[in-house]
């Protein structure tokens, strides 16, 4: 669907075969989210108030942000199941630094991003140059990262984390003019990634690799460098997202941090319409997917429904999204 050529001859020679700026999946997601928000606004006392929407956007941010990196990785035909472990490592390093030496916000974010970038580099090098499938490598590194994270934790939680990262939190320090900083940063990064993937040669190369890595290589794409870059980008975003995670938690960080987040992120990416087989996808869809999942989770709580129903709904969304993707793929093949 995304690689359909424009029927009319393009006016500028530069823009050829560009996908439409918004995909069908994204329109459907926007529709579903609008309907859900409207329904929740009617059926709950305060869903559509600042006190409810602001924390919802804050909670969406880390998943959507890591989802941007995950989308790029999946577009190249890879996957990164180590992001949960990486979040654990980055957040425990950052939290311990905050407690131990009281660094300021900028330094804390920088430390977390550097830690994330290093972990992403490990994944990227092993996958790009090791020629083993990403799922195997990242499954291995997921366990290594968790081991590393637990070692850094020692045998206790990190207590008394100062409020330095409150800039990204749920409280009043985390907003400017009512807009949560964590969400704003996520939107800006998503927009930048959207533009990069759509309008630059380098960005299009990710799609080429996911479509057919061999053909991309023959066409002159530096496949290994591109693949490496995808995992490093993911690592950097994991670093920033870890700061959001600390900010949203309590003043204590325990070892369950990051646990299961790889599945939450992959769910957002898949619901967003990115093909799990690579070659097609959109960071905008991922952001909408993350927003939909958090809307369902908050909605279920605010409606007073049983907590486990949100798992059921997310499961249905994933299956519907993957099913729609497979149907589209079949339609393309039969054309």
């Amino acid at each position, binding site marked *: 669907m995304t690689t359909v050529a424009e029927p009319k001859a393009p006016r500028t020679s530069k823009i050829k075969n560009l996908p439409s700026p918004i995909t069908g999946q994204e329109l459907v997601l926007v529709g579903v989210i609008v309907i859900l928000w409207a329904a929740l606004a009617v059926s*709950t*006392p*305060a*869903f559509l*108030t600042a*006190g*409810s929407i602001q*924390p*919802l956007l804050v*909670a969406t941010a880390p998943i959507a942000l890591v989802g941007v990196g995950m989308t790029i990785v999946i577009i190249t035909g890879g*996957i990164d*199941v180590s992001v*949960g472990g990486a979040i654990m490592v980055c957040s425990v390093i950052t939290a311990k630094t905050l407690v131990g030496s009281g660094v300021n916000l900028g330094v804390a974010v920088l430390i977390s991003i550097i830690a994330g970038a290093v972990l992403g580099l490990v994944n990227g090098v092993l996958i790009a140059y090791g020629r083993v*499938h990403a*799922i195997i490598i990242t*499954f291995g590194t*997921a*366990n290594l990262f*968790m*081991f590393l994270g*637990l070692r850094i*934790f020692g*045998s*206790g*939680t990190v*207590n*008394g984390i100062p409020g330095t990262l409150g800039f990204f*939190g*749920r*409280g*009043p320090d985390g907003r400017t003019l009512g807009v949560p900083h964590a969400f704003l940063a996520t939107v800006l990064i998503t927009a930048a990634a959207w533009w990069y993937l759509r309008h630059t040669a380098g960005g299009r190369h990710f799609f080429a690799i996911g479509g057919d890595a061999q053909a991309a290589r023959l066409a002159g794409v530096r496949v290994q460098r591109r693949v490496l870059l995808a995992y490093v980008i993911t690592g950097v975003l994991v670093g920033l997202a870890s700061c959001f*995670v600390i900010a*949203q*938690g*309590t*003043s*204590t*960080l*325990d*070892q*369950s*941090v990051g*646990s*299961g987040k*790889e*599945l939450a992120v*992959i769910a957002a990416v898949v619901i967003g319409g990115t093909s*799990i*087989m690579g070659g097609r996808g959109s960071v905008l869809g991922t952001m909408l997917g993350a927003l939909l999942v958090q809307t369902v*989770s*908050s909605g279920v*709580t*605010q*409606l*007073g429904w049983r*907590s*486990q129903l949100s798992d059921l709904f997310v499961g249905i969304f994933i299956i519907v999204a*993957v099913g729609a993707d*497979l149907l589209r*793929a079949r339609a393309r093949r039969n054309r």
Partner: protein
Amino acid sequence: MRPRFAAAVALTATAALALTGCTKKNDDTAASGDATGDKTYKVAFVPKLQGVPYFEAMNAGGKEAAAALGNVEWLYQGPTQADAAAQADIVRSYIQQKVDALIVAPNDPDSMAPLLQQAKDAGIHVATADTDAPSSVREVFVNQATAQGIGEGLTDSLLTAMGGKGKYAIVSCGQTAENLNSWIEVQKAYTKTKYPDAEIVDIVYAGEDQAKATQMATDLMNAHPDLTGLVGECTSSAPGVAQAVKDAGKIGKVFTVGLGTPQSMKPYLTDKSSTAAILWDVENLGYLTAWAGAQLAQGKPFTASNNVSSDLSAVAYTEADKMLLLGPALAITDQNVDQFNY
């Protein structure tokens, strides 16, 4: 089609693996000093998960008991996530090691019961501590406090702050956690009889995820604008509900209590976003657990009142339900929080 199918299978397999938990084992043993001549009894304790302050404090108490008793080797190992399958693996490994006494705080009492039977068949004395497996062959349950004591302690602390009336909600953790659910049952019944003007409006489950517990508490406050109380039922949701109240700027309007460890609750007790943490002396619980394991291993019976140590001079044992009771629940407030270093 084929590679797509393979990829889908691979993804599913990974998801399944990730769900069952990727566990690393991290042995932590504390052998007791001199056991020359006498037999040294291996007493193993499998917590729900290790690395959290709660069970680490139990471990510290267990080590202390082993050192004091002299003839006990205290073994301590748990899964890195509160996962029943990972915990079962550790229990199996202790059965193979033929420890003398095996004490478990089961994540899932029902699936633990057949394993305890297996241990008993292998000649190992089995017990539970912290969380019971009531329908199992365990010989004793080392109980930190009765469900009655904890449920009533939580309810009384919260409703005193709420002025004896109003709506409150509970943020619990694992949905199958036997002890959490038994406390919630007491909270429901006790609130109804003692505080007829108070009402529990919802009970939600956040797993062990602090950020999720905080978000759920935020959602609950939005769902019920007249909510004046929140209970964090476990050590990750207790600071979570307090953080949510603080973030929403509702300190003094919405009161919280919870089952929190002292050091993690200290900032919230200090800024009044949490009224009280209900707990017990966890190190003493570990001490009592190790002592009970040693008694079982040596075939010594429990008496109605047991002199365990100077701190635990009269631990009650009830024959009917085979239960050792640590004592009454403890309310930790900003006044006494500094007495606890975990």
